[in-house]
């Protein structure tokens, strides 16, 4: 997981300085320089949901730091969930843990949450 305090050092010329990988299994998701930094406040479901939550209550948190990827084929390895309310959630293609971000059907853009991934080349 990349802490908010360390986010600034991941951004060089508005792009991701290093490769972006799964925090659990190290799967390579995005190569360096392929994502554009973008700040926006989005509610993203938590990776683990409490079982005692109500039927349609979703545990979410607000995330603000994303890599924007205009063409989904830019990813090295990534999984897409089924569509929920015009969005598909991004998951690790290997261990399937997520969401690590989302894909907006209308704009075709993908947003990878900096706080849900790790930034390292190897």
């Amino acid at each position: 997981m990349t802490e908010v305090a360390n986010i600034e050092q991941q951004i060089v010329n508005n792009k991701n300085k290093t490769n972006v990988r799964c925090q659990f299994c190290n799967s390579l998701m995005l190569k360096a320089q392929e994502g554009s930094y973008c700040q926006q406040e989005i509610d993203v479901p938590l990776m683990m949901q409490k079982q005692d939550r109500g039927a349609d209550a979703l545990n979410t948190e607000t995330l603000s730091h994303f890599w924007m990827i205009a063409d989904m084929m830019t990813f090295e390895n990534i999984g897409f969930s089924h569509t929920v309310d015009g969005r598909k959630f991004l998951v690790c293609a290997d261990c399937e843990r997520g969401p690590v971000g989302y894909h907006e059907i209308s704009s075709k853009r993908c947003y990878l949450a900096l706080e849900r991934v790790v930034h390292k080349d190897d």
Partner: protein
Amino acid sequence: MAKTYDYLFKLLLIGDSGVGKTCILFRFSEDAFNTTFISTIGIDFKIRTIELDNKKIKLQIWDTAGQERFRTITTAYYRGAMGIMLVYDITLEKSFENIKNWIRNIEENAAADVEKMLLGNKCELNDKRQVSKERGEQLAIEYGIKFMETSAKASINVEEAFLTLASDIKAKTEKRMEANNPPKGGHQLKLTESRTKDSWLSRCSLL
């Protein structure tokens, strides 16, 4: 923006439910109090990147998402598919018999030149085997397609199977391109990073 890859192939996984097209159950360490959000909504498709002969290839791999239970796989699902993995379970005779039905379904709905490959999955369960390897091979010969026994769980041959299918599609695509545009001499050199050692295909999933 310049494309960062040479080819994009859309691949489908087809076969009866439960043959291990996905082995989701093995992937999550579910604990008693939490459930994952993703396991509830399910996965639609994945993008994978491989390299063959210095060409960077993007694979977009689709699972049937349970539609196969209702035999409702239609033309829309097959649209644009360049390769199909036909998967049966070597411990389930019925799933093998149904391959013929799946092939008929493909012939009716998919492009005529779609590249197909037959996979006998769960080959780690040899003691429960109902379909011999020879029968798998024989069926593949009958349809003129390639065959492999795989184990998504034990990571046997899964990577090889995808590389084989991708390589066959690539060969076919290049042959077609050559027929359309004969090479004018000279060739393109391109630097590409080699695949990570820790390959995605070595994990517990056909996807």
